[in-house]
């Protein structure tokens, strides 16, 4: 019961506590306007370059924006505690770490999902890209899978925040890596072999690929393999993140870096 409450109630309160620094004046432009600008930029680059597939750029750039809250808000679950001076209190609490941190991931996943859905829907309306209603359900599942897997990677970033003071720079680099490698603007199959190898291990790659297929009319069952891979990658990064959190928590007590990293 305690673990469940910590997961659901604790996760929601901490999300409000730690991600609240993004006031509406920052939150709305970051989550609603910036993804649209990114979509417009790449769609128009595509049109200028003679690649007349607006849908490809719309999907890639809309879905990848789920990574913004997933990476930054998760990274902030430790970084924000350090800034507030609450990190020692969190570490000195007897709370079980797995429900504590996974609970913090839940609102972040929802946030990422909503950002990507908004960007996709509004982008499609403004650019007059046709996404048949029959595909909406499958696309939503794919976006949810991407948000989950990306939050797993964000949890790894949160763990690193136990060792370094600033995680926003790292999250920006990871976001850039996803934009380049995950098939957002260039199909993975068109990339050099080593880049394809990297892409296979990144969140978003399989989910974005599945979203393209779903938008093209393929069934959810036919992309289930890609979505499962996406989720497994998320679980892999989340497990790595929780393991690293455990180790770095011990190390921070040994090296006295909880206040001073």
């Amino acid at each position, binding site marked *: 019961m305690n673990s469940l409450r910590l997961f659901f109630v604790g996760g929601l*309160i901490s999300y409000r506590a730690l991600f609240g620094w993004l006031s509406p004046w920052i939150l709305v432009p970051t989550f609603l306007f910036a993804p649209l600008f990114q979509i417009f930029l790449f769609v128009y680059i595509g049109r200028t370059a003679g690649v007349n597939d607006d849908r490809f750029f719309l999907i890639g750039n809309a879905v990848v924006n789920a990574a913004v809250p997933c990476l930054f808000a998760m990274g902030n679950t430790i970084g924000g505690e350090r800034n507030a001076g609450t990190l020692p*209190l969190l570490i000195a609490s007897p709370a079980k770490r797995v429900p504590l941190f996974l609970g913090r991931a839940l609102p972040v996943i929802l946030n990422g999902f909503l950002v990507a859905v908004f960007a996709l829907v509004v982008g499609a309306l403004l650019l007059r890209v046709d996404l048949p209603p029959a595909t909406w359900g499958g696309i939503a599942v794919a976006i949810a899978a991407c948000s989950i897997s990306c939050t797993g990677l964000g949890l790894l970033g949160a763990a690193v925040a136990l060792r370094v003071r600033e995680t926003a720079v790292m999250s920006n680099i990871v976001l850039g890596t996803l934009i380049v490698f995950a098939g957002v603007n260039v199909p993975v199959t068109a990339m050099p072999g080593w880049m394809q190898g990297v892409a296979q291990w990144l969140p978003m790659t399989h989910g974005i690929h599945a979203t393209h297929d779903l938008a093209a009319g393929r069934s959810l069952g036919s992309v289930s393999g890609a979505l499962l891979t996406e989720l497994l990658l998320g679980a892999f990064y989340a497990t790595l993140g929780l393991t690293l959190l455990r180790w770095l928590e011990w190390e921070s007590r040994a*090296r*006295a870096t909880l206040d001073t990293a």
Partner: protein
Amino acid sequence: MVRVAEPVIEVEELARTFHTRRGLFRRPGKEIEAVKGVSFAVERGELFGLLGPNGAGKTTTIKMLITLLLPTGGRARVLGHDVVKDARDVRGKVGYVFGGDRGLYERLSGLDNLRYFAELYGVPPRESKQRVGELLELVGLVGREKERVEGYSRGMRQRLHIARGLLHRPQVLFLDEPSIGIDPVGARELRVTVKNLVESGTTVLLTTHYMFEADELCDRIAVIAQGRIVAQGTPDDLKQQVTTGTVVEIEVFGLPDGVLEKVRAEPDVQSVAVDVQGQAQLLTVHAQPGADVTQAVMAHLEGSRFGRVITRQPTLEDAYIELVNAA
């Protein structure tokens, strides 16, 4: 059979060394011994004070006891649990309150701060609501609990810290300079709260720079300086350790010639000082420990006009300063 009370906090030769590095490349290392093998024990229901100057090792000691820092030497047990091996057991049974503005979620209300920490400490939901209400009342934040903490004054934040530390009814409470930044009324209320907690059976380890606070509250005190405990005992024990005895202060209007020398020549007088205060002179006489020189000094002043006469014992502050300076 005689039952011997087992200490609630047992600290044996506890030590902590910090390694610091400077620069980016070929970083020269430096070792700082913050705590150099301190030992003490605190009984159940006792209020134990840890006094010392800034950087003496008080907070480092507390951080080791609440499992935030791993010791580099010695051992410590809290409620029978080793602070290194049984960290989780320790965490669930102790509370920790420190001074200062930080350590709260600014964007959340005071109420939500308490709710969240209640979740972290596994306080059952039904009990949590009641407990939060009780504590808000205890610390005088009823009516302000729904406001964001970012709008709280320093005193309100400190009171919220105290409520947070008590949420899970800890058996042992660590208070690290809890009255810092609180106004005199708030500090007095805090002392009453701490006294009540001790009366209800909570064991408290307190650090403070306010000597009157330590004197009023603590059953026993350890004075720590440069990472070592330099004295330990009740406040009265510590006062006894000072080389100064009773202090007599006499306000005299026109001190006769030669009186100063005569007083100084008294066998039990350790030192004499005169301070001119307007038309009066304040004669301050420090007696040898255990001696009372009031009558002897007054005899030398026969015929003089004098105002107030005060005889006071050496304070804990006198003892503290002497102990720390000697360390």
